């Protein structure tokens, strides 16, 4: 509840202000829409079948004579050969077979349709699942244009996206229901997921395969920008972190390098290059912390650094005891990582 309040009150960026969609019934991309069409057809057929069978059942128990006392059973059929199957039973089974066939064909067609998403000019992102956060590397034919980010997947709206899914440890599953169904991230194997977000917006997603302790707090957001804005965003992300400007920020960088932070995180343009934790080069541009667990506000960021386990018990980031001054400097530095 407190998280929610501060989320609403302090909500930093305009993107984070709206509650993001995470709903298979509200498709906002072609792939999810295709699945949703199939869902509606399936639901219709199943509802009809349900109604029909239940009606037959209720009619049968309504028309059969009821009795409280034990009557002699009706065993007239017992010693005769089985009568031929009643026509209604045969018809019922036949209808079931036909309806199932319809559903199988519809599924087949939907699957083909999902597989046919045009992939020209697709954005390629390599997503790696970790316990319990997401790494994202934006691929490019030109190595110098590649860059790393974490926990938020930014994509251009209206353009196809190819995700290359990998895992660094156990099996995770990438699932943003408003955009597409899920796909597992399996160690030792690479899988692909194609989708397209049709409108700009923020879509929430969550790890869907049980992956241990903090599985519940392994969320992410997909942020779809208008294409031009996406290019601008990507251009900014390719830049290394700016050098600290003020004295306080310089101290902050020093704190960062001196304490445990640099042992796990990368900040491009500095000496910190470790890959055990999320890339922090553009930390300040993200809207959430700790895989969708906390809003990215200075208060939460500071509290998180001092004691991550307070918010995410299993987080694999150690608590960092800092003096008030060190913390202030570090925060000042981190805020420059736009």
């Amino acid at each position, binding site marked *: *509840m407190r*998280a*929610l309040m501060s989320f609403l009150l302090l909500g930093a960026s305009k993107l984070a202000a709206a509650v993001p969609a*995470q*709903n298979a019934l509200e498709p906002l991309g072609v792939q*999810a829409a*295709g*699945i949703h069409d*199939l*869902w509606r057809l*399936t639901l219709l057929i*199943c509802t009809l079948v349900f109604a029909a*069978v*239940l009606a037959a059942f209720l009619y*049968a128990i309504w028309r*059969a*004579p*009821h*009795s409280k006392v*034990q009557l*002699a*059973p*009706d*065993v007239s059929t*017992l*010693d005769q050969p*089985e009568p031929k199957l009643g026509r*209604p*039973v045969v018809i019922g*089974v036949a209808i*079931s077979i036909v309806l*199932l066939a319809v*559903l*199988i064909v519809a*599924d*087949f067609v*939907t*699957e083909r349709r*999902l*597989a046919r998403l045009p992939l020209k000019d697709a954005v390629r992102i390599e997503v790696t699942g970790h316990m319990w956060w997401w790494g994202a590397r934006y691929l490019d034919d030109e190595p110098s244009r590649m860059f790393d980010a974490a926990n938020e997947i930014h994509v251009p709206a209206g353009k196809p996206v190819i995700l290359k899914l990998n895992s660094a*440890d*156990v*099996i995770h*599953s990438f699932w943003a*229901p408003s955009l597409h*169904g*899920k796909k*597992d991230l399996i160690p*030792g194997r690479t*899988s692909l997921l194609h989708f397209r977000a049709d409108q700009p917006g923020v879509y929430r997603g*969550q790890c*869907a395969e*049980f*992956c*241990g*302790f903090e*599985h*519940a*707090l392994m969320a992410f957001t997909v942020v779809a920008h208008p294409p031009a804005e996406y290019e601008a965003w990507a251009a900014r992300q390719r830049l290394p972190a700016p050098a600290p400007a003020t004295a306080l920020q310089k101290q902050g960088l020093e704190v960062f390098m001196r304490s445990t932070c640099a042992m796990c995180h990368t900040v491009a343009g500095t000496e910190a290059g470790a890959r055990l934790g999320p890339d922090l080069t553009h930390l300040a541009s993200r809207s959430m912390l700790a895989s969708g667990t906390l809003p990215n506000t200075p208060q939460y960021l500071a509290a998180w650094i001092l004691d991550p386990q307070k918010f995410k018990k*299993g987080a694999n980031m150690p608590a960092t005891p800092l003096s008030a001054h060190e913390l202030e400097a570090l925060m000042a530095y981190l805020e420059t990582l736009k």
Partner: protein
Amino acid sequence: MNPSPAVEPRNAVLDRTWSDPPGLIGWLSAINHKTISVRFMLTTFGFFAAGGVLALLIRLQLTVPDNKLIGPDFYNQLFTMHGTTMMFLFAVPVMQAVATYLVPLMIGARGIAFPRMNAFAYWIFLFGGLMLYAAFILDIGPDAGWFAYPPLAGPEYSPGKRTDFWAQLITYTELSGLLEAVILITTIFKMRAPGMTLNRMPLFVWTMLVTSFMVMFAMPSVMLASTALITDRLVGTHFYNPAEGGDVVLWQHLFWFFGHPEVYLIFIPPLGFMSSIIATFARRPIYGYPVMVLAIIATAFLAFSLWVHHMFATNVPELGKSFFTAASAMIAIPTAAQMFCWIATLWAGRLNFRTPMLFALSFFFILLIGGLTGVMLASVSLDLQVHDTFFVVAHLHYVLIGGAVFPLFGAFYYWFPKFTGRMMGERLGKWNFWLMFVGFNVAFFPMHIAGLRGMPRRVYTYPAEMGWGLLNLISTIGAAILAVGILLFVVNVLLSRKRGDMAGADPWAAGTLEWATSSPPSPGNFPRPPVVGSRFPLWSKDGVAGTVRGLADDRREVLVTSVNDAVPNHRAVMPESSPWPFVSAVAVTVLFIGSIFTPWAIVWGAVLCTPPLVIWFWPKRGPTQKNIEREVKP
């Protein structure tokens, strides 16, 4: 009705021969199938209650968003143990437990095949289950899910003893299931009363025969998988380690090759309960007997061809997916055929809405929903959305509770008079039923919606912004109502056992053989085993065509008949009560539990197991081996 063989006077010698010996040693030596079955049923029900308590804790935690009541560590143990308990310690064993009571009675046999093995299977089941719970209480409860996917369940990501306990005890309790399957298949094939051809077997016996065959094919798969897991964990093999050429998806194939059929292991015996109850309370034989039998067999075959639908989100090749979609959807056809046959039976019957019937009829509503959501899950594309969400939690409980628990409760009401000699209270029964029915639907229906609206499963908390709070609150209220309903059942059993109306041999005027003997049956079941002339022997004039004479009273002699036509072949002498199955079970348990801590336990455990097993199987020569040629005249 017809004069039933129960009318024959009880025979004191026979009763003594088949009784379990008195005293504590006697108690531990018991091998009578009814004694063992009652213990087995009570044990599985105990595990059901424990699993239910865990479920309530899960629901309590999920009632409101951002709840801090139960942390991730305990929550993960809770749902792991809930799933493990319900699937491995309740649902399959309870069906086998009920069957070991009823099958011999339904086929007119004096006992069960391999009675000592039956006792042994019970003891290892009890010890295995208790050890699993002991681990849980000692805070080394497994927490990698009841499906225990590596690498999460592997040595690297689940260090410590938690998953060791899980993997080892799964292998162990499945051993019990495997033994029970062998026992039931042998009993059904070789010990049917003369005249009970396959074509006259009660449908419940058919379902248990098919289920037992499925166990024989499915269980080894999971035992193999969990053994490979334990060797990965204990002695450093690399079956599931991708870094060393192992494959994590291998586990999923092995596990679901067992895990999917397991759902049908749970669901097929209740089809037999349904058929017994509906026939009796509609006062008519079930319509389309051959169709029912073929449908059960078809379900069993199909059940082995669709495990991959649990793995659509992994990299299954496209063509494969379509095959598994079609197979998964097609399994609805035999079930549909059975539903229609039952409706046809009701249509032509005269209905009596006693409690067992209410439980059976609720199946039409609940299983219909569970079956239809199953058809939805069969579709690859839809499954990619709802897999691993609360939609699946809803679906699986509609199938398991609607398909197994409701018929099972009906079955308890129906056969309670046979087990105890007394009727269960009808008024409490109705309350019991309606609370369970309403509570169940209130608890599980909203989960469909929560899942579609994006709520993943196996999460210990969820943010308020997602808007799943109300649905979860309703679910928890439903679960509480369901729990009260189940509690009433316990109350009803306790009250009725002492004060219920006396039942008599055949209180429902039912037609199958188990009602042809006194309630509860004498230790030897049938003073004179019947000779069967029809599918519902008690309902037709020549149903019980005579009785078998010439079986000895002073030793445990049973008639062995041919597989197809139940023509008497010869007689066999069943073993006496013996404490050695119990002692052996203790020794084997020490071996298994010890091996969790050191591989050497296999060696010294084997040494420990040898003497009791040798004594148990030491051949005895005696008068029992004579006279075996004596002809039996029906």
